[in-house]
C-alpha cells in the first residue's frame, strides 16, 4: 500500500513540477531539489486532492496561514509559540530541523516529498477508520 501511495505521489509531483518521477525521492525538498515555487504548491494541493480523492483543508499540508498570525512571527522569524503551533498543526513537517534557523522565508525549503507521503498516508488511514 505504501509503495502504491508513493508511486502515485511521484507521478503527481512529477506532473506538477515538470520533473522526472525518479527525481521525486522521499528526502527531496520541494523547493531546493525540485524547484517548486508558490504556484506549484497550489498545483500540488489540487492534484493530490484529485489523485487521492481527498479534501486538503487550508494550512493542513503547507502551513501558510500560521505565518500570517502576528503572534507567531517576529522580525521575519517564527517565534517559539509559532514553532509549537506549526508542530501541532502540521506534524508531518520536520519542525526540529527548521527551528535551528526559523526564518519565515526559509520555511518552504523544509517541505519535502516525505512530508507529503506521511500526510497522505495519515489521511487515507483516517478515512479507512471512519
Amino acid at each position, binding site marked *: 500500500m505504501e509503495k502504491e501511495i508513493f508511486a502515485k505521489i511521484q507521478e503527481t509531483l512529477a*506532473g*506538477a513540477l*515538470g520533473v522526472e518521477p525518479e527525481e521525486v525521492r522521499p528526502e527531496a525538498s520541494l523547493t531546493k531539489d525540485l524547484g517548486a515555487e*508558490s*504556484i506549484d*504548491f*497550489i*498545483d500540488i*494541493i*489540487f*492534484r493530490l486532492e484529485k489523485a487521492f480523492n481527498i479534501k486538503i483543508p*487550508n*494550512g493542513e499540508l*503547507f*502551513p*501558510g*496561514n500560521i*505565518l*500570517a498570525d502576528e503572534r507567531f*512571527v517576529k522580525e*521575519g522569524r517564527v517565534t517559539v509559540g509559532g514553532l509549537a503551533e506549526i508542530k501541532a498543526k502540521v506534524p508531518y513537517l520536520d519542525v526540529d530541523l527548521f527551528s535551528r534557523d526559523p526564518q*519565515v*522565508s526559509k*520555511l*518552504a525549503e523544509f517541505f519535502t516529498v516525505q512530508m507529503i507521503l506521511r500526510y497522505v498516508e495519515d489521511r487515507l488511514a483516517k478515512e479507512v477508520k471512519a
Partner: protein
Amino acid sequence: MIPSPVSGTAMRPIGVGIDILSLDRAKRFLTAHSSKQIQKIFTESERKKMGRELFSPPHFAKLFAAKEAFFKAAGGSWMGLPGFSRIQIQPFAKHRFKAVSPRYQPKETTAEGCFFESPEWVGAQVILYHAESKSQKSKVKTTIQKLK
C-alpha cells in the same frame, strides 16, 4: 522618503517584492485544473471584474505574479492558498496596480506596483509604503512643485 507614483504624497518604502511567472507554467496550471479550483485563488471582485479572462494565461499570470510580489514585499513568506484570495489586485492604469489586503498588510501602508512582460513570461513588482506625517507630506509636495 519618496513621493508615491500614484498619489504624489510622501511615502516611505518598507518592502519591495518582485515575481515572474512563465506563460507556459500558467497555461499548464490552467489546463490541469477546473475553473472552480482556479477561482479559489482570486477575490470575488477579481472574479467578477475579470470574468473568463481570468483563465487566459497572460491575465492569470499577471494577477498571480502581482499577489506573489505583494507577499514578498510584505514579509517574504508563502501565505497558502487562502492568502491569495485575500489580496485584492486593482489595476488602475496600463501596467500599474494597487494591492490591498487588510489581513496581510501592516497598518497605515499602501502597496502599489507595476506589471512587466515578455513574450514568454509576465512579471510584477510591488512596493509597500508607509504613510508619513503631514509635515513630511508637505515637504515632498513642495519638492515636487519645485521640480515641475
